[in-house]
C-alpha cells in the first residue's frame, strides 16, 4: 500500500463506536467515556476474541436441539404432532410453495450455519495474525452483520402461527421446545457478530499496532 496508512490506535487516538468522535484518553488503559455522546470508549472491543469464541460455541451447541426438537406442536382433534424446522420446510415444499420453502431453508438453516462458519474462520485467521485477504474478510464480516437478523424469520413464523391457530378443540398450535433453542442461536450469533472487532483483521497489517486479545 502506498502513502500513509496510520490507524487511530497507532497514534493513541480512540474512535467512539457510537458517534465516531476521535479523542485522546488521558489514561490509555482506562479510556473512560466519549466526551461528546457518553459511550464507553475502547481501543478494540473488550476481550473481543474470547467473547466471540464463547458466543459462537454456545450458539453451535444450541443449534443441535434447535433442529432436533420440534418448534411447533399441532393438535388436531386430540392427536398431537411435532414439527421441526426442517419439517416445516418440507411441509411448505410438498404443499406446493417451493419459493417459500427455499426462503425458510435459507433463513433458518443456511444463514445460521454460514454465520457460525464465517465467524470461526475470522477468529482463526485473526488469532494466527493472518495478513492475507483482509479486504475479503472485512466484506465477509459485514455480510455476517447484515444478514444475521434474517434468521429470526422462523421465530416470527412460529409466533404468528401459534397466535392465530387457537381453535381448540378443532385445531390448535403450541410452540415446541426447539423454538427457545433456535431463538438462542439467532441472538447468540448476533451478539457474537457484535462482539467481534473487524479492526483486529487489519491490526496484523500494521507493524506497530497494539495487540489486544
Amino acid at each position, binding site marked *: 500500500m502506498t*502513502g*500513509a*496508512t*496510520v*490507524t*487511530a*490506535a497507532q*497514534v*493513541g*487516538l480512540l*474512535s467512539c*463506536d*457510537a*458517534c*465516531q*468522535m*476521535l*479523542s*485522546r484518553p488521558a489514561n490509555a488503559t482506562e479510556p473512560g467515556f466519549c*466526551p*461528546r*455522546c*457518553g459511550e464507553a470508549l475502547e481501543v478494540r472491543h473488550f476481550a473481543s476474541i474470547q467473547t466471540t469464541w464463547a458466543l459462537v460455541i454456545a450458539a453451535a451447541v444450541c443449534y443441535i436441539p434447535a433442529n432436533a426438537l420440534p418448534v411447533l406442536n399441532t393438535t388436531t382433534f386430540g392427536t398431537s404432532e411435532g414439527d421441526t424446522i426442517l419439517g416445516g420446510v418440507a*411441509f411448505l415444499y410438498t404443499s406446493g410453495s417451493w419459493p*417459500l420453502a427455499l*426462503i425458510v431453508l435459507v433463513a433458518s438453516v443456511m444463514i445460521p450455519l454460514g454465520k457460525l462458519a464465517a465467524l470461526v474462520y475470522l477468529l482463526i485467521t485473526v488469532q494466527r495474525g493472518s495478513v492475507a485477504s*483482509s*479486504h475479503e474478510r*472485512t*466484506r465477509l464480516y*459485514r455480510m455476517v452483520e447484515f444478514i444475521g*437478523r*434474517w434468521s*429470526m*424469520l*422462523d*421465530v*416470527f*413464523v412460529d*409466533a*404468528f*402461527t*401459534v*397466535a*392465530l*391457530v*387457537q*381453535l381448540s378443540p*378443532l*385445531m390448535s398450535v*403450541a*410452540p415446541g421446545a426447539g*423454538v*427457545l433453542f433456535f*431463538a438462542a442461536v439467532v*441472538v447468540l450469533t448476533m451478539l457474537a457478530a457484535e462482539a467481534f472487532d*473487524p*479492526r483486529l483483521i*487489519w*491490526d496484523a497489517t500494521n507493524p506497530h499496532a497494539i495487540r489486544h486479545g
Partner: protein
Amino acid sequence: MSARLESDSVACPDCDLLQRIPTLPPGGRARCLRCDCFLAKQSSGPSDLPLALTIAAAIAFVVANTSPLMDLSVVGRVASTTIAGGAYEMWLEGEQIVGVLVAFCAVIAPGGYLLFMLTLLLAARRSPPPRWIAELLRWAHHFQVWSMLEVMLLGILVALIKIAQLATVQAGIAMYAVGALVLLVPAIMVTFDARELWQRIEWVDGEMPLLEPADGVAAEPRR
C-alpha cells in the same frame, strides 16, 4: 508540535485507518480508502424530510400495533391477532423468553427507535441543539439494530401462506401499516445524516485532540 486533528478526521469503524472526509456534493458518499467501509454521506433532500418521514412512520407504527394483523375463519369460527398478540400467545404457551424476544424485536425496538428519532429530530431544530440529544442518538442506534420489522413482515406472510392451506385468512389493516413501516424506516435511515448532527453538538472543550505524529494523516477517501 501542537498540530490538531481536523474536525473532518475520522477513524474507519471497520479498519481504524485515520483519514479525512472531503467536502461532499449533495447526494455524495465517502468510503474508507482502505477497506471500502461506508463513512459519510451528504444528504440531498430537504432538511425536514427525516422528520416528516419519522412522523409518518410513528403514525403507521401506532396503527400497526392497535389494529388486527390478520383474521382467520374456519367452519364458522373466527380468530384474529395483533402484533403484540403474537408475543403474548408465546408467553401464555410457556415460552416466556421467546415471547419477550418477539415483543422486543417487533414492538419495543422499532417503537423506541421511532420515539428517540422523533424526539431528537424535533430537538435538533433548535440551534444549538441541546446536548442530551447525543444520548438519544446513541440509544436510537442501539435499538435500530434489534428492530426487525422487515423480518417480521416476511415471517407473517410465510405463516399466512402456511395457514391458508387449512383455513381462510385475511390480512388486516395492521398488515398494510407494517408494509408502510418497512418502507418508511429505511427511508429515515437513508435521509437522516447522523454525522451532520453530531458535528452540530458541541464538544465539551470545543477543540479537537492533539495529533502526534503530525504527518501522514490526510488521506483523501474516494467517493
